[in-house]
Structures are given as C-alpha cells and as structure tokens.
C-alpha cells in the first residue's frame, strides 16, 4: 500500500505561545521565549537560562482522575492535542467510533520520578506516593494518559529517541498510514521544563551561559554561539490518510512526503556529517524530490559549537547547489529536546500556511561552515511549497521530514 499522508490538525504549547495564533505571531516577529530560572542557579546549575513555558490550569477542564496521572509534559501534550483535535474537526463522538492512534515522542519524566523517590525516602512508605505517580513517572506518560483521556483505539506507544523523538514519532506515524496499517494518528512530542530534567545536560557544559542577555543566548550557526538553551512544552501533529481526510471533510493543512532516518554508529554525543547526510538523502529519495525542490529547511541547529558546525556541513553537502532558505527556530525557542522534532513541523507548517520564513534570530556572524548556507536573519515573505525539518539526537539518531503544500 502507498497511501498519501496528510496533516489535518496542529496544536502547540510552547515558550512562543499557548496556541497556534500566538505562536505564529511570535515566529513572524522573531520573538524570543528565553528567560532565566533562578531556581536552577540555587541548585548549582552552570546556566539558569531556559524557555519560559506556562503550566496550563486543568482544574475545571479535566476531572481529578484524569489530572492526577498527568506529568508536567503530559499536561502540555494534552493542551496541544486538544487544540489539534479541534482544528482537525475530530470530536469525541467521532473518535470513539473510529480507530485513532497515538505516537508521541518523550524521553524523560524526571520531575515525577525525582519527587516520587524523595517521598519514599522521606515517608518510608510507597502508598503515600498516591495513585498518579506511576502514570506521571513512566516515559510513556503522554501516550498512556492521552489515549485514556481521548479514548483512543488505534496504535498507542511512545517513541524515545533523545532530541529526535518528536520527529521520529511523526515519521513512524507517516509510515503506518502510508502502509495502510492506520488511518489516523495523533503524533507529537513533549518536553518537561524544570530543574530536575536538565541537571545532567547542564553538567556536560552544553548550555549557553550568556545569562546577562537571555534573548540573545540562543544563536544557532552564529560564530559566537556558546551552547544551547533547554526549553519545552508540547506539539501535536495529526496525521491522516488523504482518503480519510477527504471522506470526513477534514481540513488538509499539508502532506508528509518524506521521512529519512539514520544512526551515526559513532560517538554517543558528537554529531556526524555522514550520518546526517544519509538521513537527508533518504528523506529526499523517499519523497521522490531533488535537493532543489526544497524551499526551506528548519535546521536542527541548537546553538552548540560542534552540532551546528556538523549540520551546516551536511546541509551544504546535500543542498550546496540550490541553497534553500534556512533558519533554526531554536534561536527563538531554545532547544525543545524530545518535543523539538514535532514543534518544528508545527512552526514550519505555520510559515508554509502564512507565506513567510521565520528568522534565525541572533545570527550575526557566520563561522566557516555556516557562511556557505542561506540563513534567513529577518522575517521574509516567501511562498513555501516544500520544507524539510531536521532532528538529531544523542546516540547518533537522525531524522529528516519533508512536508509539502497540498495543491
């Protein structure tokens, strides 16, 4: 089977806004969502920089039984999914009668786990963790909770692939529908934002310490970048077969046409130009497209010296002739980690729908590799027919998605 796979719903909860409209505005105006969390400094973090993400208030929206099992990232995912299902015109009565699946990227629930262990140590009694702890603590906290809340009956599991989790979730959803195994899948990525989650990452000196100027700290591809800024929230992308979307009169926002993936087979944290190129080429080949067909690339570039340098080389090697417009929305959001691969599909689809390329803010001076790329530094009006989004993660896991405008 070779079904066409379309996007019929998008939802977002991030440091750029709590819904699609707010986020579109932030992207267009090049607004940074980065600030300082002084609690991290008190905990001994090198960097207190973080994406500033509001917690949703769910009392009155969800009943107690549903709420107690939600981890922080699952709360974000619930809000993003609620928005996506609404604009995909999937109401509960329809969902209950159809086989809707969920594949969501998530790779930690550190706060829930840490707080549970602290309670056990203090109380010496596991019952006092309460009933929700286990459903908050497992890596599949998002899929187990949302599948219950939304009464989903299709495929149901979590993808853990470090900072490529959200992208692989969409890629796997694409394959499932393409091959006829499912018709509708809620895909996405979620990322907790708290001091429990990022201590070990901070310990690797991976974070920017440009604390005196938070909105300037995330500067992907810029010569003076000094590290990434952790961030999070959740993004939902509802995938559906073209036939199903047409049949039920759903809005068709875009089409997923390519999914490339690869493993570096090298160092656990260093990037690999070769690994990234294999992912990019696989995505192009699967989509039946040439490099010159890509109008815009939303780069993975997180603002680390080594990672951005390798990605710039890989992009130049594959797209050096056509030089598509490139920006890393992480310049505004920071690195949304497990969520990033999904949120960057939402951000880029918003650009596609509204005919602009969001800027790679803070890109002032190129280095040797990024000088070869067509990096967009100001919001640019542009018709985007096809875009590509990269996501790379620890362990050398790479994912590239290609999305096309429906015509």
């Amino acid at each position, binding site marked *: 089977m070779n079904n066409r796979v379309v996007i019929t719903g998008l939802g977002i909860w991030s440091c750029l806004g709590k819904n699609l409209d707010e986020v579109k505005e932030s992207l267009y105006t090049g607004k940074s969502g980065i600030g300082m969390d002084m609690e991290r400094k008190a905990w001994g973090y090198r960097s207190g920089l973080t994406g500033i993400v509001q917690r949703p208030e769910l009392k009155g929206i969800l009943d*107690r039984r549903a709420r107690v099992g939600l981890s922080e990232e699952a709360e974000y995912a619930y809000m993003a999914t609620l928005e996506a299902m609404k604009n995909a015109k999937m109401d509960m009565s329809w969902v209950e009668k159809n086989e809707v699946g969920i594949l969501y990227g998530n790779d930690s629930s550190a706060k829930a786990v840490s707080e549970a262990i602290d309670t056990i140590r203090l109380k010496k009694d596991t019952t006092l963790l309460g009933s929700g702890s286990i459903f908050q603590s497992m890596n599949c906290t998002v899929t187990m909770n949302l599948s219950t809340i939304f009464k989903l009956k299709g495929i149901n599991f979590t993808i853990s692939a470090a900072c490529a989790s959200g992208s692989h979730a969409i890629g796997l959803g694409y394959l499932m529908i393409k091959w006829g195994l499912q018709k509708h899948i809620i895909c996405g990525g979620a990322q907790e934002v708290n001091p429990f989650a990022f201590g070990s990452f901070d310990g690797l000196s991976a974070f920017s310490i440009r604390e005196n100027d938070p909105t300037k700290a995330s500067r992907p591809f810029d010569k003076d970048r000094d590290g990434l800024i952790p961030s999070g929230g959740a993004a939902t992308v509802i995938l559906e077969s073209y036939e199903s979307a047409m049949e039920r009169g759903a809005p068709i926002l875009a089409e997923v046409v390519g999914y490339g993936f690869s493993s570096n087979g090298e160092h656990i944290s260093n990037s690999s130009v070769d690994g990234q190129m294999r992912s990019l080429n696989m995505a192009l080949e699967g989509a039946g497209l040439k490099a010159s067909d890509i109008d815009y690339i939303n780069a993975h570039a997180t603002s680390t010296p080594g990672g951005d340098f390798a990605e710039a080389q890989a992009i130049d090697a594959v797209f050096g002739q056509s030089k598509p417009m490139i920006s890393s929305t992480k310049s505004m959001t920071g690195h949304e980690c497990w969520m990033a691969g999904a949120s960057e599909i939402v951000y880029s689809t918003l650009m596609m729908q509204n005919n602009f390329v969001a800027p790679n803010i803070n890109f002032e001076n190129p280095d040797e590799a990024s000088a070869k790329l067509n990096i967009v530094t100001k919001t640019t009006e542009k018709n985007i027919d096809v875009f590509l989004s990269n996501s790379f993660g620890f362990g050398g896991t790479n994912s590239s998605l290609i999305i096309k405008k429906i015509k």
Partner: protein
Amino acid sequence: MTQEEIIAKINEFLVEEFEVDAEKIIPTSNLRETLELDSLDYVDLVVIIESNFGFKVVAEDFINIHTFQDFYDYVNRKVAEKATA
C-alpha cells in the same frame, strides 16, 4: 482538634480534592458510591488523610467504613488515639 473541626476538614478536602458536590455529602450516604471511588482513588484517600491528620490508613480499615459518618467516626477515633499515644 474537635470532632466538628475534623468533619469540616474532611468535607473540605472531599470537595476540593475529590471534587464532590458539597450538597452530596450527607452523613448517612454511602462514601464509595457518592465519591465514585475506585481502587486508585483509595490510594489518594490514604495520602490525603496522612497529610491532613498525620496517620496512615491501612487498607483493612476501609472494610468497615460505609457511610460518611463511619468515615468521620473512624478519623476522629484515630486522631484521638494519636493524641493520647
């Protein structure tokens, strides 16, 4: 803590945390049915009693608690035992 204070505190957390309508809390009504408690909810009831009254409920204690009044009496007794211990 007086018996009235204990009852007021229990009713408060049942309304706030278990989201039961205050008017449904009638001493002679069945606790489990009114609160629609399942096995997971009982765990949360143990947590909330511990944090409000400082003692740990054991599962067997729930066997003889049927009505709200049974529940008030049980907590009252345990609080008194704790005070004299």
